[in-house]
């Protein structure tokens, strides 16, 4: 038991690694604050193009979405970071993360939002148009608010996955939580920093998990 505590839950090690872990935690927050909005913007654009665009554009948006859902995000990130420089294009670690998440998470948010838009009966758009609202106004005021509400549990779930996925930024040497935990582990020869990182993720994401459950229960009750 003592061995277990020494290896995994060593208070002394936590104290020692605290500053670097805390910095990693802040990086993870910053990465989330960048990748979630970027993914949502990408998702809204894709959802709009694939539902309200002309036929050719709709098809292209669907193909784009398929492509970036099929490519593993880690592969995409490594390609952007380590592959693009061979074409003389160095976007850097932050650039690679921003572009990669925009492409990957955008495709996922796009699918969720597309389903939400599809859940709004067509008659409501016709009613809105019949009062003189433009297509864009009908989307903004009638369709999107309901679309978002109808798929809110899925949107929050997706956000949860995006925050977890920020840990892949460690492979391009961005000092986020996992990266810093590995550094601390190497410096202390102890697994406690990894456990501390897991606990930090849990504390950060558990409220979101609860929120999803509540939203899902509410959606079920509403049905």
């Amino acid at each position, binding site marked *: 038991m003592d061995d277990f505590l020494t290896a995994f839950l060593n208070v002394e090690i936590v104290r020692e690694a605290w500053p670097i872990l805390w910095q990693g935690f802040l990086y993870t927050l910053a990465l989330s604050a960048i990748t979630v909005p970027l993914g949502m913007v990408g998702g809204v654009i894709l959802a709009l193009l694939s539902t309200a665009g002309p036929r050719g554009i709709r098809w292209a948006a669907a193909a784009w979405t398929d492509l970036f859902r099929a490519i593993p995000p880690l592969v995409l990130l490594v390609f952007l970071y380590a592959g693009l420089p061979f074409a003389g294009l160095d976007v850097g670690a932050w650039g690679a993360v921003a572009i990669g998440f925009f492409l990957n998470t955008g495709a996922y948010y796009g699918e969720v939002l597309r389903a939400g838009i599809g859940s709004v009966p067509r008659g409501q758009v016709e*009613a809105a*148009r*019949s009062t*003189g609202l*433009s297509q864009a106004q009908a989307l903004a005021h009638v369709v999107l608010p*309901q679309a978002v509400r109808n798929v809110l549990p899925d949107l929050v779930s997706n956000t949860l996955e995006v925050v977890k996925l920020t840990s892949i930024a460690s492979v391009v040497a961005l000092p986020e939580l996992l990266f810093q935990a590995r550094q601390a582990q190497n410096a202390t020869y102890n697994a406690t920093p990894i456990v501390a990182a897991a606990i930090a993720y849990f504390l950060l994401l558990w409220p979101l998990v609860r929120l999803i459950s509540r939203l899902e229960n509410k959606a079920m009750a509403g049905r």
Partner: protein
Amino acid sequence: MPVSADAPRPIVDARGLWKRYGALTVLHGVDLSVAERELVFIIGPSGSGKSTLLRCLNRLEEPDDGSIHVDGIELLSPKTDINAARRRIGMVFQSFNLYPHMTARQNVMLALRKVLGKSRDEADSIAAAALHRVGLGERMDHHPAQLSGGQQQRVAIARAIALEPRVMLFDEPTSALDPELVGGVLNVMRELRESGMTMVVVSHEMAFARAAADRVVFMADGQKLEEGPPAQIFGDPQHERTRAFIRQIDRH
């Protein structure tokens, strides 16, 4: 075009409307003219093109051929701002199509704010007046889900009339309602008619047609087969299809 008192310009003037869905021709060169303050009733078997005709009149459907003037505006011209034109044409749907995430008041206010550009206060008082007019003054802050079908349809009417349209189109406004809720909606339509609103109504409410319509149009297979005053269409129909249709309706 000279305008004289005895030949007023029609509010709706549709000529030679053709509409096809692939190989299926739904409208075969239909004409429809509606004078100011007139209530035209359209009847006919299911699938005869009544909804399609009505939906062409505000360009929710694009006719393949023909011309439509509403209040003097050439509706099908590419130069026409269709969103501006649609403010003059109110439409009420069988399935109400209220916005479920908004209260009754907000349903009515949306186009007042976004299309007519009214201030919030102004839109609010116009919406309140429209909802009072349809008998829902007490229910303005309810959401559609908290209203009966009849009340929802009255909100939909309020949403349309708040924009002060020149003509109102009704597509089977009472067909989705429980029988005991039909009367409330018809009363609102009757009141509208008495206030001088120009109306085109697709409906199976023959008693209402007899009492309120100026003219009844019978459609079958995408064509206007017969039209005339209600007494003539219901009492002495000329066309065999009309006779058969009215016999069948009367049996219900």
